[in-house]
């Protein structure tokens, strides 16, 4: 019941902010940027942009969102819409500025060094977070983006397919392979005893 009430409240709040955003309210834009800047920076970093390039692409993403808000129909979640813009901005930037750049890269065979990163005593620990992130960073970028969208952003397969402009089956394949690879990497990092945690 509380969950449903929260959902309805969240939806109303979002509709309110959307109205303000469309009217060009600067405070609403401040809220919008503060809420989603981490997401956009994460997408850019995960796509393999350099630190000096990330801010340019993130700015481009927010400016494109600002200009395109009148066309945003509200059919998809606002964060899904913004992810889609950030993802495509990053891809087109990389295509334009990197020679021989390919969207699908190779699997990094290097595994997380378990001697440097001690196994975490609890799944709540910061160490676990660090190890998991290290492992995610070693995934091919499309797998990593899929994992982040699914596990961090709680996006369903259909939404991920929409963001990445691909088929749902492709997303499922990415997720399946990424999980398998992550298990290997994390098993090596945590040690054989903690396998499957």
């Amino acid at each position, binding site marked *: 019941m509380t969950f449903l009430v929260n959902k309805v409240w969240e939806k109303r709040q979002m509709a309110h902010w959307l109205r303000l955003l469309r009217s060009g309210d600067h405070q609403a834009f401040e809220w919008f*940027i503060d809420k989603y800047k981490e997401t956009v920076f994460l997408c850019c970093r995960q796509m393999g942009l350099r630190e000096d390039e990330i801010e340019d692409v993130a700015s481009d993403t927010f400016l494109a969102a600002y200009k395109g808000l009148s066309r945003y129909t509200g059919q998809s979640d606002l964060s899904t819409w913004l992810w889609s813009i950030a993802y495509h901005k990053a891809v087109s930037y990389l295509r334009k500025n990197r020679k021989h750049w390919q969207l699908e890269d190779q699997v990094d065979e290097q595994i997380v060094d378990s001697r440097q990163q001690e196994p975490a005593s609890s*799944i709540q620990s910061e160490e676990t977070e660090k*190890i998991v992130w290290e492992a995610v960073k070693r995934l091919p970028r499309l797998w990593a983006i899929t994992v982040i969208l699914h596990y961090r952003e709680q996006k369903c397969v259909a939404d991920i397919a929409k963001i990445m402009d691909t088929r749902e089956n492709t997303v499922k394949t990415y997720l399946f392979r990424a999980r398998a690879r992550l298990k290997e990497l994390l098993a090596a990092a945590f040690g054989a005893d903690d396998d499957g945690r």
Partner: protein
Amino acid sequence: MTADRLNEDRFDRMLAQALQRHSEPTPADFTERMITAFKQAEQQRILAGVVLQQRLALAATILLGAVTIIAVVFFPTAVAGGFRTVAEAVGQQAGMWIDRIPQAVETVRSQWQFYAFLAAVFGFAVYSLVDLLLGDRLRIA
């Protein structure tokens, strides 16, 4: 639920928790800089609208001038005829209005109370308008 499935769920939960706890570093003043960029984009949009309006007005003036010159050079009789017709129509209308002036003066003289009231209302409207536009400046002075 099998042991494998249980492990899968635990793995998913651990992954979700670890990824959700992570906070991505962003430049501290990014929001302020973006707001400034939005304001600049807005100003540029308004400026582009004004420039477009001015260009259209200029184009219309040039086009109208060119059409007039072409018409005078190639069809002088038709242009002269057209202007004569317009001048005659305007003259006729002006004559009619001038003829009505004595009648209007007579009406005003017979109903001066009504017109005095209208003048007072008009005066108040002018005062309100001046107060609205220049009131603050006058009060400060």
